[in-house]
């Protein structure tokens, strides 16, 4: 991510200006302690998270896997401050998210975290360039054209700046979404099934880009996926079942992940 260095002056005020380098490598980027989150009421109450303990280090790419309904998405939402836990504690970059008010969470979204979604979530009416500039504008920062262009160049879409989402392929749309997430230089990138809606070639491109961010710039990535191939691109895979962390594998192969997943399903 060499292109990022020119954008230091636009880094969020409350974020570290230089990366990688988390100030204290011993402090985990994300820490969840006995996190519980339930939905519904009465007999229908479901514990999506049922006492999750999780600690993630800076600069690592973690994939969260598990069968459908295992609580992957809820884990991501709670970790990113989009949802709140009923009990337990969630700490992101040393900041306690439990009971954080909207203002703090908004500030968090402006500079500390970035999001990529399965369905891209680009604003259909905006060009690629405008979509990428949107988070900067929302944060009240000047969106310099060269910053936006370099973010697009980083994902290989410099020539698509003026295109609208509907004129782009799914893979290209997801790369625009990636550029949009990265333009604020977030400390943690949260990706919710980023390859879920892509063909395998596009998925490979996106995973390659994520790998590059992680290796070159020490980007911390938390990714939810159900695709063993996607998970195999990560450094660590955390397995979730029935709202609990049941396993953790470092540098796994896709086959090993698939086997583990099958064993969880049965």
């Amino acid at each position: 991510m060499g292109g990022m260095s020119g954008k230091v002056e636009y880094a969020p005020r409350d974020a570290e200006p230089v990366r990688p380098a988390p100030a204290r490598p011993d402090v985990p980027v994300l820490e969840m302690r006995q996190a519980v989150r339930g939905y519904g009421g009465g007999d229908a109450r479901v514990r999506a998270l049922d006492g999750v303990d999780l600690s993630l280090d800076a600069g690592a790419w973690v994939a969260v896997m598990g069968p459908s309904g295992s609580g992957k998405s809820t884990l991501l939402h709670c970790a990113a401050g989009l949802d709140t836990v009923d009990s337990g504690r969630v700490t992101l970059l040393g900041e306690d998210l439990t009971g954080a008010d909207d203002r703090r969470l908004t500030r968090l979204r402006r500079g500390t975290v970035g999001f990529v979604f399965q369905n891209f979530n680009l604003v259909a009416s905006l060009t690629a360039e405008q979509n990428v500039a949107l988070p900067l504008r929302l944060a009240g920062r000047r969106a310099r054209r060269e910053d936006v262009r370099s973010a697009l160049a980083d994902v290989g879409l410099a020539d698509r700046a003026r295109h609208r989402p509907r004129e782009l392929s799914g893979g290209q749309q997801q790369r625009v979404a990636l550029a949009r997430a990265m333009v604020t230089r977030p400390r943690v990138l949260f990706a919710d099934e980023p390859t879920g809606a892509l063909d395998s070639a596009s998925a490979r491109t996106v995973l390659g880009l994520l790998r590059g961010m992680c290796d070159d710039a020490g980007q911390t990535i938390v990714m939810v996926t159900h695709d063993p191939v996607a998970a195999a691109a990560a450094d660590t895979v955390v397995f979730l079942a029935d709202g609990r962390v049941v396993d953790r594998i470092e540098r796994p192969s896709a086959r090993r992940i698939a086997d583990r997943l099958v064993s969880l399903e049965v």
Partner: protein
Amino acid sequence: MFTLSWSTLRDRKQLFAGALVAIALGVALVQASLLVLMSVSDPVIPSDLPRAERNEMREGFVGAAMLMGLQVPLVVFLAVFVVGSTCAFAVAQRRRDLALLRVLGGGRGQVRRLLAAESLLLGVVGALCGAPLGLVATWGQARLLEHVGFVPAGFRPTYWDWKAVLVAGATGTGIALLGSWNAARRAGRIRPLEAMHDTGAAARVMTPGRWCVGLSCLALSILLAVGAQAADMIGAVTIAMVLAVVGAVALSALAPLVVPLVARVFGLMLRRSALGALAEANIRDGARRNAAVAAPLITLVSLVLGLSGALGVLARSIGVEQEHLTRGDLVVTSADGARAARLAGIPGVADVSTRLTVPVPVTAEVRRDGPGAARPHVFDERVIAVDPAAYARARTLVPVSGSLADLRGDTVAVGSAVPAEGYRAPRVGDTVSVDVAGRERTLRVVAVLPETLDIGDEFLIPREALPADLLAAAPAESVLTVAPGTSVAEVAKRVRAAGLGESTTVARWAQGRADAQQDGNDKIFAVLLGLAGVYALIGVVNALVIATAERRAEFAVVRLSGLERPQVVRMALVEACAVTTIGLLLGGLVAAAGMAGTARSTAAATGTPIVVVPWGMLATTVLGAFAVTVVAAVVTTREATRERPARLAGART
């Protein structure tokens, strides 16, 4: 931020166009009402016309001013209602977009400011578009008034007045801001998480604000409906009109609760076909959307039925009252007094009571209510000349003060229309002046007649007070009592054979009075609700267009599941028809509540509960509503399904 607004505007044309149309037309309508009100309140009456004509023209203008005075608040209410509902709906439709903004770092204030700025912009643009449209609406309103005869042919209203234009524009902008204020406040509370769900978390439809408005208006409606039962007739009719407005607001606010219930009933009919079952599910699922479509319909129907029903009751009551007041068998209308005088000579006629309408201006020196010096005021251009004894036999009207027996020589009995014009009524002992063929005569008031629903015997003068030639030439209406043992029909035949006039039974004559009143009512109704009704219908179309345009992806999904495009259109059509029915039923419910009140109070006043269901108006409204929604549903659904479904199903819309 504004890049986003502008591009959203481009992408969601229907949403913004819908709000803009609602605002612009609302502004136009308010502006037209104000301008016409100003024009008829201060009319130019040519001084070269004969006095009688000038007075008649002035009376017309006074009536028109009264109507326009009623119309202004009605139109403002409709504008508030339609614009508010459209703006709030438009925001609700963008919920996911707004949630995405929050995920990308947008603060609550930013989302609120974005919406407020947008609606301010919409309001200003709408007001600017509305001003020229107001010229057209003013023209239309003036022609309508001319058509029904309230203003003379060739009446030219003021087409431009800065004050009126600014007030209308400010009203439109203000309503747009207010309408989205609540929505913007709610939008600020949208949780970013909602952007993460594919279908978008079902937003809570029954917001606290909706509950509050719905329940308080419902409570007020119930109070009004109960109050109407105890009120006198005019009171009950007035209450029925207010109820039409308040009840419509209540049921519109609570519509999201009612829509699924009614959908269930529909489901019993629809469930047999797969398409019907899908439509039923959609109706229940899209409660917010369907409530937005139903709201203007509810208002339209309750206003149309409520107002025309109340006016109809008034007309019918006049007939009933006149029938009760009249004692006799036949009413004969004769061309002049001379012929009427010969009625007594027809074999089989036991008694004749003739009312002669004599063109004699009546002036009295009376005070206006409140402060102000006594000054002469021309009350009427005609007096009714009667034989007091015969009048008393044929009419059961008992004076509230004085006595008809004193009606001898230069005397007069006065009726109820006098205080209605804002002047203190003459009392027994007062004097009024009449101008009889150029000679002024002073008459002493000897009796005051009670108020009746119909305007009629305002100035009763004994025949001997007027010259015989005037009486002989005056148009006459006589109540005949047929001698026992003689056939009424036979007497009627003899009257006609003698060329003395046309006979009708008292019942039929009373009905004629009611019909005449109803004619006047229809005109009033056309002026009051003509343009406003069209506006409400446009509101329905608006909501439908917005709702359908936002369903592209949903339609694409059902097409991918195997529905053909015509089937999708049919499904949307079934939904639109069901929602229209719901709107019509709820509007009818409000109108029915008003009618129940008037029925009770008319029963107390006349002995018979009177319920007038304006079937013609009902049929027109029902057909009009269905025609409009069916066409709008077909056109918008075809438009929304034009693209190939595979492209749309996955795309964020």
